[in-house]
C-alpha cells in the first residue's frame, strides 16, 4: 500500500489527525505514570545509603534523559525540514523545544533538590551538571531566535540551522566540560554514588521515562496544532474551522 505522505504532512490534514492522536498519547502517559509512581513509591525499597531521598531518581533521571532525547529529535525534525523544505517538520521542531526546555529545567531543579541532602550543596560545578545547564541555554537560544523572527518561513529555517549547529556542538561541550572538571582536580563528590540499581528501581525509572515520552508526544502535538492555527490564520481551512468551532 502506498501512503500519501505528502497529504499527511500538510497542516490541513494533520490538524484533525493530531487531534485524534492526542488522547491516546495522553492516556498512555497517564497510565504509565500511575504505574511508575506506584512502583517508585510503593514497591521500590528504601535505599540503605540515601534513605528515602533517592526516590527523586524517579523524576530526575527520566527528566534528564528526556532533555537530551528531545534535543536530538528536535534537531532531526529541524534538519528534515531544512532538507525537504517541509513545513510540518519545522513546526514539529518548534513544538518540541519548550517541552525540552521544561524537562531540562526539571532535571536541574530535581537534581539540586537531590544534591542538597546528599552533598550538602544545591549546586556543584560538576561536569554533568554544567553540561545540563548549557543544554538549557541551547534550548533557550533556539526558542528566542524563533520567537523574534516574524516571518515564519525564515524562522523555521534559521531555527533549523541553529539546532543543527547546536547538535554538532553538544558532544564538544560535553567532553570539554568533562575534561575541564577532571583536569583541574578530582571532584570531591562522586555522582556515581548511587548503589547498584535494583530491578524494581530500574523498572520504575523506565516506566516514568516512557510516561514522559508519551506526554511529550501529546504536548508536542497540542503545540503543533496551536502553531498551525497561528501561522495559517488567513488560510481558508483555519477560517472555516474557527467559524465552526464553539465558543
Amino acid at each position, binding site marked *: 500500500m502506498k501512503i500519501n505522505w505528502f497529504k499527511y504532512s500538510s497542516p490541513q490534514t494533520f490538524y484533525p489527525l493530531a487531534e485524534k492522536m492526542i488522547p491516546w498519547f495522553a492516556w498512555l502517559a497517564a497510565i504509565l505514570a500511575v504505574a511508575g509512581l506506584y512502583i517508585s513509591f510503593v514497591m521500590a525499597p528504601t535505599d540503605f545509603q540515601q534513605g528515602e531521598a533517592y526516590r527523586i531518581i524517579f523524576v530526575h533521571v527520566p527528566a534528564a534523559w528526556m532533555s537530551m532525547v528531545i534535543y536530538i529529535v528536535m534537531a532531526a525534525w529541524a534538519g528534515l525540514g531544512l532538507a525537504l523544505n517541509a513545513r510540518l517538520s519545522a513546526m514539529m521542531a518548534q513544538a518540541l523545544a519548550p517541552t525540552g526546555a521544561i524537562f531540562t529545567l526539571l532535571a536541574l531543579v530535581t537534581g539540586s533538590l537531590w544534591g542538597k541532602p546528599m552533598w550538602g550543596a544545591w549546586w556543584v560545578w560538576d561536569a554533568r551538571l554544567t553540561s545540563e545547564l548549557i543544554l538549557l541555554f541551547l534550548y533557550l537560544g533556539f526558542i528566542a531566535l524563533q520567537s523574534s523572527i*516574524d*516571518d*515564519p*518561513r525564515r524562522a523555521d529555517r534559521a531555527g533549523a540551522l541553529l539546532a543543527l549547529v547546536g547538535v554538532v556542538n553538544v558532544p564538544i561541550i560535553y567532553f570539554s566540560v568533562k575534561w575541564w572538571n577532571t583536569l583541574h582536580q578530582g571532584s570531591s563528590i562522586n555522582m556515581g554514588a548511587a548503589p547498584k540499581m535494583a530491578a524494581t528501581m530500574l523498572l520504575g525509572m523506565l516506566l516514568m521515562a516512557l510516561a514522559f515520552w508519551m506526554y511529550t508526544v501529546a504536548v508536542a502535538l497540542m503545540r503543533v496544532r496551536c502553531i498551525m492555527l497561528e*501561522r*495559517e*490564520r*488567513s*488560510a481558508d481551512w483555519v477560517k472555516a474551522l474557527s467559524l465552526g468551532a464553539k465558543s
Partner: protein
Amino acid sequence: MLMVQGLACLRGDRLLFKNVGFELNAGGLMYVLGENGSGKSSLLRILCGLLKPEEGGVFWNGKPIDLDTDIYQADLTYIGHLNGLKDDLTALENLQISARLAGNQVDDAVALNSLAAIGVARCANLPVGVLSQGQKRRVALARLWLTRSQLWILDEPFAALDTASVDVLAARLGEHMSNGGMTIITTHQEVTIHAQSTQTLRLSA
C-alpha cells in the same frame, strides 16, 4: 535563454502572485509593471536566486538556476533597490571592487571611463557618502559599462536619475540588447528603450 514557469511568491502570509511564467530570448527586453507592493522586486529577487519561490522554477539555458548557480551568476548582473556601495570608499574604489567581485578585472582607466559615461567622472575620487542620491545611483549603474554578462536584472534603475542620465542609461540598455543581451526591468516611468523584442508583465496587488 531564460525560462520561467509557474512562479508563486508568498511573503509573510500573503500570496503576492502565482502562475507567473514567461520566456526571454537573446535581444529581448522585459518590463515588469505593477503598483507599490505588488511584488515586482520580489519577482526580480526570485529571478536572481536571492529568494526561493513558493512554487515554480527558473531555468537558464534549460537548466534550473539553483543547480548550476555559478554559471548562471556569471551571466547575471543585478542592480536592486540598494546600491551596494560603501559610503567610506570612493566611487572609483566601489566600482572596481564590485566589478572584480562579479569577475571582471578592470584597471583605473576603464573604470574611470565608465564613470564618465554616466556623468559622474568628477566624483570618482570622492567618498560615496558625500554624494547625492542620484549620483550614488549613477555610480552603482556605472557597472553596466563594465560587465560582460548577458542577463541584466534592474530594479527601478531610473528612479532618482535626472533626465539626461535617463537617456544615457536607456541608450546603454539598447546597445546591450542589440548585442544579444537580455534585460528585465521594473520602472514607474515611461522610458523608450530599443530592443529586438519587448514584452510586458503586469503584476496586480
